[in-house]
């Protein structure tokens, strides 16, 4: 018997290389044991050229996919990106695009290595692997990873991976992000790092399978071909780079890029933050009582706490701790420890590592304490559970973490880097489209929302400081070709805002009318798990935006209204009077509408809410208030009640004016009112404590606290310590 020769460096197996890689980091604290990075530094121009060539290949690959794909997610939203990896699955560089997947793509590669694919499955030049299982790595099952090894003279020298969000994963209707599913089998098609092609060609048996299993097989397969084209293009460019720069240089320089970024990231943390402890909490609501699931025990509304603690250590490391997170549940939004890394990646890359050099090194200074087993973020019953949509609570977590990072920047004086983020939710559908094909659909934008204020200006309106796909869903006209609806409104909603000295961005509600479908079912699409409990995103004296709403508006008699040429509803207007103004029924469907049949003329609306304002609203400049009034971004009621500004409108000139002296009086009176209305915290604490002792709070909240206390004795002790509850107290 001769010893088997591995496909890695010097005949090593990938598993050996991975073990060595981890050992070197463990021993030295430096990536791959590089304590003395010098290759890039010796000739910086050459180093820059080398990095630029890699980045250019990734960006060109991304654009290649967009040209091949037929999916609006790829062509319009550009929800895809590419990364280049070391043989062990460590990210060297990532293309433009959503910055979530730096580690997740690599974790898929590591999973294959650890499962001994090299010997038991085989890894050959020209093989394509795909994966979409958040249990291995990923944020939701709709994200499909296409992975291609890169060989040089029979040695595997790296990997290239593309990730694309798919419009159809064969999940239970309706949806690509299904909600009416609680068991794993209903999540849709799972690919667990499976080989779907070889010798640079997609396998025909795979094509047959997709053709039979997915309603949108053509879109799915075109996306695979787009990803293959991109991956091959990048692979060939990497080979050209190796031939020009030399293999030794390639190997050393790619690893130094990671170590260099690790060092830079620690330097950025020490430059921009303040060491210490930062805390907040996310509440994740799961309204499952009315979801039509076969596993009936799932029919229970419940709420789970996700406390977040970020410790910025004097060493420059960040530690994230979710101690106190409640239990997993029968819903598709259970997180996985791997998925948390996606949230971490998008947060730090876009706030700290925004110089185009982000890679695994950006994440090495971050420690995520493994969430308690059996918790929402680490369920152990993973084989039974649906995990298709961990995205929802995790988006809330990373929006909150951005808020906490923002506080740390603010304390250090970098107020311009302070902001926070809030995602949204809306409708998705399944049914017959305009051309008679039955398939899942997302009802276009859940987005058009406003991000949080910064410490130096208002949040951008209808956009995002953070580039996530929701902030730009692309061309409405293209979406109208894919979904049997017409978007009938484009108007800023002043009531979406989070008030503050600097306010959040203002959101635009999505208002679409169903048109030309024979049969259609709608249900929720989730990018958040917040509903009745609004997120804690007010920065200092700023308020978080209010509740967001998924609405179904149904006219009493639409044909007659059209026949009589009466106006249709194009705007949602004031949130307290919509039912009075709409000639029909307004259904406030909550966070996760259970599947509902939809009909011609129904209006689906996402009444968005923005993230948070910053600072006391009564300190807002009157010039900013006047501008907002002129631009329809603020109502007179808001100017008077939230900003305490004495404003008036001239009907002749159509201009707003602010009476500065009267405003000063209003603001002084508001300060007086607060001092009179506010009570000492001790007094409030005693009243609140009494309610807890008597269990006089909502049963869902008691169950929520019980769930967290059950998993975490230390969290239970903190609750008891804060409320000075007896040792034998039980929630």
């Amino acid at each position: 018997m001769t010893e088997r020769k591995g496909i890695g460096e010097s005949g090593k197996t990938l598993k050996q290389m991975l073990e060595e890689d981890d050992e070197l980091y463990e021993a030295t604290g430096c990536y791959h044991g590089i304590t003395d990075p010098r290759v890039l530094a010796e000739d910086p121009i050459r180093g820059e050229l080398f990095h630029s060539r890699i980045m250019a290949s990734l960006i060109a690959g991304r654009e290649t996919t967009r040209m091949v794909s037929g999916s609006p997610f790829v062509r319009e939203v550009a929800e895809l990106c590419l990364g280049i990896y070391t043989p062990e699955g460590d990210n060297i560089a990532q293309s433009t695009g959503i910055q979530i997947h730096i580690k997740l793509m690599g974790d898929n590669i590591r999973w294959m290595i650890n499962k001994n694919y090299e010997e038991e499955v085989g890894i050959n030049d020209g093989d394509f692997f795909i994966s979409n299982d958040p249990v291995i790595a990923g944020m939701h099952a709709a994200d499909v990873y296409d992975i291609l090894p890169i060989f040089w003279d029979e040695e595997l020298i790296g990997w290239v991976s593309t990730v694309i969000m798919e419009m159809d994963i064969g999940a239970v209707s309706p949806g690509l992000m299904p909600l009416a599913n609680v068991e794993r089998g209903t999540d849709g098609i799972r690919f667990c790092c499976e080989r779907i092609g070889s010798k640079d060609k997609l396998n025909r048996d795979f094509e047959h399978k997709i053709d039979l299993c997915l309603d949108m097989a053509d879109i799915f397969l075109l996306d695979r071909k787009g990803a293959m084209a991109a991956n091959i293009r990048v692979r060939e460019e990497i080979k050209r780079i190796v031939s020009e720069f030399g293999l030794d240089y390639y190997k050393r320089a790619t690893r130094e890029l990671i170590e260099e970024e690790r060092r830079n990231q620690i330097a950025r943390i020490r430059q921009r933050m303040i060491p210490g402890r930062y805390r907040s909490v996310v509440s994740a609501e799961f309204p499952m009582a009315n979801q039509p699931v076969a596993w009936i025990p799932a029919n229970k509304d419940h709420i789970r706490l996700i406390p977040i603690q970020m410790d910025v250590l004097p060493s420059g490391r960040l530690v994230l701790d979710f101690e106190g997170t409640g239990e997993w549940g029968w819903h598709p939004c259970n997180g996985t420890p791997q998925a948390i890394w996606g949230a971490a990646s998008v947060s730090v890359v876009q706030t700290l590592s925004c110089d185009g050099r982000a890679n695994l090194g950006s994440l090495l200074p971050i420690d995520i304490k493994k969430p308690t087993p059996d918790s929402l973020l680490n369920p152990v019953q993973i084989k039974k559970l649906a995990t298709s949509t961990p995205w929802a609570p995790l988006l809330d977590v990373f929006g909150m973490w951005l808020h906490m990072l923002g506080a740390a920047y603010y304390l250090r004086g970098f107020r311009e880097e302070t902001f926070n983020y809030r995602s949204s939710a809306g409708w998705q559908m399944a049914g017959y489209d305009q051309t008679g094909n039955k398939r899942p659909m997302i009802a276009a934008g859940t987005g058009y929302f406003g991000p949080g204020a910064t410490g130096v200006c208002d949040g951008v309106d209808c956009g995002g400081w953070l580039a996530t796909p929701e902030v730009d869903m692309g061309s409405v006209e293209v979406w109208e070709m894919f979904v049997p609806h017409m978007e009938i409104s484009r108007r800023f909603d002043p009531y979406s805002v989070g008030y503050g000295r600097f306010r959040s961005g203002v959101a635009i509600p999505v208002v679409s009318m169903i048109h030309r479908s024979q049969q259609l079912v709608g249900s929720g699409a989730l990018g958040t798990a917040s509903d009745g409990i609004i997120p804690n995103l007010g920065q200092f004296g700023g308020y978080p935006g209010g509740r967001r709403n998924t609405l179904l508006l149904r006219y009493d008699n639409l044909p007659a209204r059209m026949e009589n040429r009466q106006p249709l509803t194009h705007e949602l207007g004031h949130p307290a009077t919509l039912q009075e103004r709409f000639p029909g029924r307004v259904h406030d469907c909550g966070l996760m509408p259970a599947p509902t049949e939809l009909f011609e003329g129904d209006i689906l609306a996402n009444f968005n809410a923005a993230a948070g304002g910053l600072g006391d609203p009564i300190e807002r400049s009157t010039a900013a208030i006047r501008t907002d009034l002129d631009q329809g971004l603020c109502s007179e009621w808001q100017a008077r009640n939230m900003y305490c500004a004495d404003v008036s409108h001239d009907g002749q000139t159509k201009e707003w004016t602010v009476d500065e002296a009267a405003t000063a009086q209003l603001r002084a009176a508001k300060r007086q009112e607060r001092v009179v209305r506010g009570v000492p915290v001790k007094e409030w604490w005693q009243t609140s404590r009494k309610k807890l002792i008597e269990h006089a709070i909502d049963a869902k909240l008691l169950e929520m606290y019980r769930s967290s206390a059950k998993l975490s004795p230390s969290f239970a002790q903190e609750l008891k310590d804060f409320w000075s509850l007896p040792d034998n107290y039980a929630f």
Partner: protein
Amino acid sequence: MSYSKEDLRDLYDGVLPWHKTFEIISKPKDDDRFDKYVAFLQERVSYSNKILMPLGDHLNVVAKDGERIVKCDCGYEFGDWRQNWKLNALVLSRDDTAKLQEIYPGLKCPNPDLCEVREFYCPNCGSLLKVEAVPVGYPIIFDALPDIDSFYREWLGRPLPDEKKLEDMTYAVTKNWGK
């Protein structure tokens, strides 16, 4: 990389022209920012105690008689920085529909059975210092407990006198309240 005192003042006040603001956002960060920031804040407060650490709009940790206390711009003192300053504030808890709808009308109103919006005011000047939206019954959040001594000693290289042990002293206060 360094910015003038005037530019930073205008940046913080929100009146710096956008092209300059964008430049500050997008360029590499300035190493001397913290000291200039503290100097900017010091000019705007009503007291002479030295600001050691900004804590948010209107709140700073200052040195006073060998201790570090949280102080409002108006001069009101909230106590040791290691206990949550909110315990010594005034609070308005928006815990019913009427009070919540003053801020969030109609469909925007959170569920008052589940959600509480707490507003913390300075008892002296009436500034709104923090808004907290949490599930009913959740402890008051201790948003930030800065490690002041490590910061000065290890990151700035100029240790402060009278170093203090970093610990959360909030529960000592609530324990006393429960007696």
